[in-house]
């Protein structure tokens, strides 16, 4: 966020108040999504995260239908269902079926709430559905931008507090449990945090496109580094870069919607990283093949094999 202040003094894009709001909220939310996304990808919970963004849609519309603050519905639904998913759904690919069936229904429920909202309420905002689905980062007020930024900052702090044990538990649950890490609690807690992240981010880029920020930057980072903490921060940085690039593009080419430019930037990052890592791996494989064909032989050649990766 200090980066924003520095940009704000000289950047001409930021002379527009709506761009200032978009950059402030967008940066904080992108950093949150990128950092949380690192663990989502690492834990193989991309599908669960996608499902939670559907919950965000339904939660938001349920609140609107009930005449409540949209954010109340968003956070209650995503945090509650995220935690429940972690408690009862296990983790990894085994619960794909559970997630798939439950969350298709939840999205249907969202449509149900939408119909209640549009038919019953005379004051209904006809664009609400589109806003919830696709976000409105360029349309948020200064107050909303500040509350977004503070929420995101709070959630980032929560993630930073649990990051190292979470890495251990994600890679080796049994080993982590033996070291006193509350593994059974961390899983549901992380999914609740992911739910809160989806809720926060969906207000900017929309429930359908949250995943552009949650999956693409960490997936790109993972292609570029095999160091977990470098990947963690790189993922956050790539998400922020995607939002900045997307906002700038949407500003200069007003016909392009910001959600499109942001998700495009994130996908472009992933495509670039994947291509780069593929080329690097192909180039590295040629001299490395004598080692790889006989893994035991590398023990003797430890110095050369080690130095190649430095």
């Amino acid at each position, binding site marked *: 966020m200090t980066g924003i202040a520095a940009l704000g003094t000289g950047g001409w894009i930021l002379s527009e108040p709506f761009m200032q709001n978009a950059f402030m909220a967008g940066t904080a939310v992108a950093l949150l999504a990128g950092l949380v996304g690192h663990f989502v990808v690492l834990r193989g919970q991309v599908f669960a995260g996608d499902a939670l963004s559907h919950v965000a849609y339904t939660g938001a519309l349920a609140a609107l239908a009930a005449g409540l603050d949209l954010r109340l519905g968003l956070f209650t639904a995503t945090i509650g269902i995220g935690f429940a998913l972690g408690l009862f759904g296990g983790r990894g690919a085994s619960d794909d079926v559970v997630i798939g069936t439950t969350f298709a229904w939840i999205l249907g429920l969202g449509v149900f709430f939408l119909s209640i909202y549009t038919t019953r309420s005379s004051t209904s905002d006809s664009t609400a559905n589109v806003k919830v689905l696709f976000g409105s980062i360029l349309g948020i007020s200064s107050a909303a931008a500040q509350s977004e930024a503070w929420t995101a900052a709070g959630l980032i702090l929560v993630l930073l507090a649990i990051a190292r*044990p979470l890495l251990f538990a994600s*890679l080796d649950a049994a*080993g982590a449990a033996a070291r006193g890490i509350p593994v059974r609690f961390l899983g549901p807690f992380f999914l609740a945090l992911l739910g809160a992240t989806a809720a926060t981010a969906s207000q900017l880029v929309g429930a359908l496109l949250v995943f552009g920020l949650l999956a693409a930057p960490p997936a790109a980072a993972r292609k570029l580094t*095999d160091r*977990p903490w470098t990947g963690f921060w790189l993922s956050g940085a790539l998400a922020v870069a995607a939002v900045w690039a997307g906002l700038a593009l949407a500003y200069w080419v007003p016909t392009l919607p910001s959600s499109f430019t942001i998700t495009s930037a994130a996908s472009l990052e992933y495509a670039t990283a994947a291509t780069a890592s593929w080329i690097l791996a192909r180039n590295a494989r040629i001299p490395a093949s004598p080692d790889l064909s006989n893994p035991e032989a590398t023990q003797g050649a430890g110095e050369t094999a080690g130095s190649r990766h430095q």
Partner: protein
Amino acid sequence: MTNEPAVRFRGAAAAVGGRTVWAGVDFTVDAGQFVAVLGPNGAGKSTLLKAILGLLPVSSGTITVFDRKPGQDRSRIGYLPQRHAFGSSVRIRGTDIVRLGLDGERWGTPLPGWLRGSKGREATARVRETIRLVGAEGYANRPIGQCSGGEQQRLLIAQALVRRPELLVLDEPLDSLDVTNQRSVSALIQSVCRSKGVTVLMVAHDVNPILPYLDQVVYLGHGSAITGTPEQVITPEALTALYNTPVDVLRDRAGRLVVIGQPDAPPEHPHGPQVHA
């Protein structure tokens, strides 16, 4: 190294889901010993390790680890869980896996290396030294998903050893390794036990790769356990008494032991000779 026993079971019993897995288990592991926990599938070998780690309370009797209740002094125990192979998509370096063994349970997020100062350098040096101890220098900087089964196992042993534990608890570390790697990983564990004075308690499916190294065997079966040296325990008499049904122990020309007639053992039980073809 202290003289207190590393692990002591006194009339210990454990129950999982209301069912008693074993009861009346008595044995003492002295510091520096290499001990195997044997028995057929479902005999409660992993349960025994969980009890030692303090993850499962005993239903009666007592267990002490370095004269304290299990789970009270985790820093003195290194634990290698039952093997879960890292898939080829796991792009985390072996070094980072080992590093988690040092401080992975601490809350927070590690600072970047250049901010960590002398403590950080010390930790890095410790990790490197442990990787050298297990002979994993050659592949420690490769993503662990791209390492072979034996390489992954060495790195995980390094993770369990990086805090210089006095007791190393291993759950089937040789499982799903090929014969060459079984032999070299057993030799590695033996050398850690002897040269560093680390007490080793190891669950094994098949006793043969570690048979020459063992000081003591805890043989679980029939809801109880017998303990002693391998020569005392892996005999027809002792196992027949344990199971209350005739059990034979054969020794092949290479000196490998084969237990026959052990109840509740599935057909592919690794004590069968076909595994060692």
